[in-house]
């Protein structure tokens, strides 16, 4: 067998940001031409920094990057594009008010004399790329009107339009449904077979297994593992990715007589300022010691449901009760005082104040209660001791209670947020995407905590786009599609594929009211 030429080579790459943060140190790995290579590791491990350096958005402070054997000193994405590198970013980088064709050609536009944009040629070019890649998109559609899975296709088309031979993808499946993921993987395999090199960031073991020919593991900015998929089995791969054996999945709730529901939501509906119905006829019950999972593609009403239940928004119709008392339509504080706790979907914006310290973030929901508050003043000593106890008890990697919470990795930040939310032993916890962007080990720790809370008798609503998580933790699962619950399942009686079909509206007609 001949040695394939290297498409990407990193040689002792270091990236230190001006504020002193060391994002990458001594990172070396190679990717052969035509290979699909996975880059794994927890948030904050430096994966995205590697991508940014390869795409000219950041420059390494030491070491060298080679693209197709040539030393690459990219100052600007334009340089990377010229070298045949394209990036599909995690937060899709499209201009919403422009059309698909305009977005695809942006930066390299077909022109008519006089600097005019040739829209006809642009649309033709997109159709040509669609024909080559099999990525179905309408060139004339406005990007703002497209679902996220289609927007991702536009991103890939954009990269192909620029003639990229190396395609970088940063967590491409985080926003996709299982069928969309399958389509994406087929496309990537197709592109690799056509000679493209693909470097993809992911958190998920099964995705690495399904897609990659090789894998590199990053931890705290360094390479901690590197393997060819042909040489490893699932167990070694898991150890490579986590650094140790994975804990066994949390035990299922023992089957038994279902208790009387603790949380009852009926007819919840919500109309936003534009008159769009974001949620309608949503009803469910959660018993003490039960986890109800909510599956759905992002943007199908999960965010609205969480906001209604947390008190951040007022339902247009219906209400929800906890132990017989209505807690919706009041205020976040009123809902909390009735025993509702919330892990919000976006931890950096709604879940935490990134620039404030760990102590201050933990205080956020309880600052007015003794023993943290005495005679209207915050008892800093008690607060600090509490923070230290949480850091130790939840195995949070932090330099101390006064470190800004935003400096922590996603997993550690999420542990602190969950710790804050369950500190008062809530009767009802709404957990939205609790392990998004969190590494496998931290996700397992978070799952253990959720199960422990369940076993104490709390009712839990778990809203997640991660079907594996839902299937492992939930006792029952409801699927949200276009603001309605379109299907309900007992957790043991459904698989990811069926859920995926219902999530995209392809399932059979909704089965009526087994929640009554």
């Amino acid at each position, binding site marked *: 067998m001949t040695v394939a030429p290297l498409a990407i080579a990193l040689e002792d790459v270091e990236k230190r940001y001006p504020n002193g943060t060391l994002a990458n140190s001594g990172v070396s790995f190679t990717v052969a031409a035509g290979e699909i290579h996975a880059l794994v590791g927890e948030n904050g491990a430096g994966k995205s920094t590697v991508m940014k350096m390869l795409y000219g958005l950041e420059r390494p402070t030491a070491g060298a990057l080679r693209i197709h054997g040539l030393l690459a000193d990219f100052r600007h994405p334009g340089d990377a594009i010229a070298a045949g590198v394209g990036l599909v970013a995690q937060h899709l980088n499209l201009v919403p008010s422009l059309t698909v064709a305009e977005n695809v050609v942006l930066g390299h536009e077909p022109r008519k004399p006089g600097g005019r944009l040739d829209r006809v040629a642009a649309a033709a070019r997109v159709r040509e790329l669609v024909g080559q890649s099999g990525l179905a998109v309408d060139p004339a559609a406005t990007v703002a009107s497209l679902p996220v899975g289609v927007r991702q296709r536009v991103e890939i088309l954009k990269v192909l339009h620029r003639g990229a031979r190396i395609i970088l993808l940063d967590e491409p499946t985080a926003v996709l449904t299982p069928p969309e993921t399958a389509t994406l993987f087929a496309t990537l395999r197709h592109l690799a077979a056509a000679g493209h090199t693909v470097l993809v960031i992911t958190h998920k073991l099964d995705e690495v297994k399904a897609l990659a020919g090789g894998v590199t593991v990053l931890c705290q900015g360094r390479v901690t593992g590197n393997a060819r998929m042909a040489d490893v089995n699932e167990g070694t791969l898991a150890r490579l990715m986590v650094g140790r054996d994975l804990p066994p999945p949390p035990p299922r709730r023992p089957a038994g007589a279902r208790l009387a529901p603790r949380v009852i939501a009926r007819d919840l509906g919500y*109309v936003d300022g534009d008159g769009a119905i974001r949620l309608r006829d949503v009803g469910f019950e959660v018993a003490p010691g039960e986890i109800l999972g909510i599956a759905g593609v992002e943007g199908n009403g999960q965010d609205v449901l969480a906001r209604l239940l947390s008190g951040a928004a007022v339902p247009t119709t219906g209400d929800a009760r906890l132990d017989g008392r209505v807690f919706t339509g009041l205020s976040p504080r009123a809902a909390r005082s009735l025993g509702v706790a919330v892990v919000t979907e976006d931890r950096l914006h709604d879940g935490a104040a990134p620039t404030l310290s760990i102590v201050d973030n933990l205080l956020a929901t309880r600052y007015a209660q003794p023993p943290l508050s005495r005679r209207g003043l915050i008892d800093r000593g008690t607060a600090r001791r509490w923070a230290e106890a949480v850091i130790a008890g939840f195995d949070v990697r932090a330099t101390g209670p006064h470190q800004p919470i935003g400096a922590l990795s996603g997993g550690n930040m999420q542990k602190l947020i969950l710790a804050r939310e369950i500190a008062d032993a809530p009767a009802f916890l709404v957990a939205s995407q609790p392990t998004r962007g969190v590494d496998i080990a931290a996700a397992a720790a978070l799952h253990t905590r959720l199960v422990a809370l369940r076993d104490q008798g709390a009712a839990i609503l778990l809203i997640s786009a991660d079907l594996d998580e839902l299937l492992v933790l939930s006792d029952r699962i409801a699927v949200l599609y276009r603001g309605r619950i379109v299907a309900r399942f007992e957790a043991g009686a459904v698989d990811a594929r069926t859920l995926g079909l219902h999530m995209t509206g392809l399932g059979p007609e909704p089965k009526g009211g087994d929640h009554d």
Partner: protein
Amino acid sequence: MNLDLVATGTAAAVVAAATLRAATPILFASLGGLISELAGCINVALEGVMLVAAFAGVITSAYSTLWFPDAPLWLHPWLGCAAGLLAGTALAGLLAVFHLELGADLIVAGIGLNILAQGLTVLLMAHLTGDKGSTASLASFALPSLRWPGIGAVPVLGVLLNGDEDTGHNVLVYVAMAATGLIAWALRHTVFGLRLRATGENAEAALAAGLPVRRLRYAGLLLSGLLASGGGVFLGMGYLTLFQADMAAGRGYLALAAVFLGGRRPLGTVVAALVFGAASVTAARLGQLAVPAEVVFMIPPLVTIAALVLVKQHQRLATRRRAAAGRAALLSP
């Protein structure tokens, strides 16, 4: 022909022509504001740019006769015009450097430059002419007016196209109209327009697409400076033929309001600029009718506030209607 009708038409044409004149500086500045806003870095220093351009234009055209005594007379106003455009654009360039290179906040730096321009023009004027109020003592030039031949006698149309004194409109009035059309077309149909809009709407996406985002923002701010300078030059070498302390009189801020009132679109911006022009004409007419000056000065800002409130209110009502329709749809089975 009905004489009353002609009289009414003539009066309307007089007001329309005056509105066009009054709106021209605001139109120039608001086109500049629009371009910078679409590039994602709105030029708050429009007011200062207009002042500096008006001052540099007037002073240069006046001193040009000393510097180039042998030059033909028609050249001096154009030298002034060039100097005004250059000075105003340079001030916008300063804002661009502060914001894009040194990371200064756009609003704070913009307002700072406005205050600087206000003080600097008066300081230099006092130094050069010994007068802190205006350059009335200097013989400065106006840019030529374009007069349509052969329609002076045509009722209504003659007044509309050539003004009530049959002198024609200043060349910059026509430049402003041409610029409006050109900019509306360029934003929509050129590669540059597409790139500028993409940069303003999602700079990260523009950068990822390999666009030179910083250079595009420089282009946006410098173009906005050039356009606002056109407004400033018109003030000093068309609308009046001298420089007065604070002669922009808030038009730069009105222009910013026009950008948003016009929904960040070229046509809307033009309409808003015309509304503000009409308001200042009304103010000027009332000024002749022994209405207290304080009341007169309040009219343009009051119209601005009223227009902003009305547009917002209209949007809110539309939102409420949509929400009510949505609620009805939700409640219906």
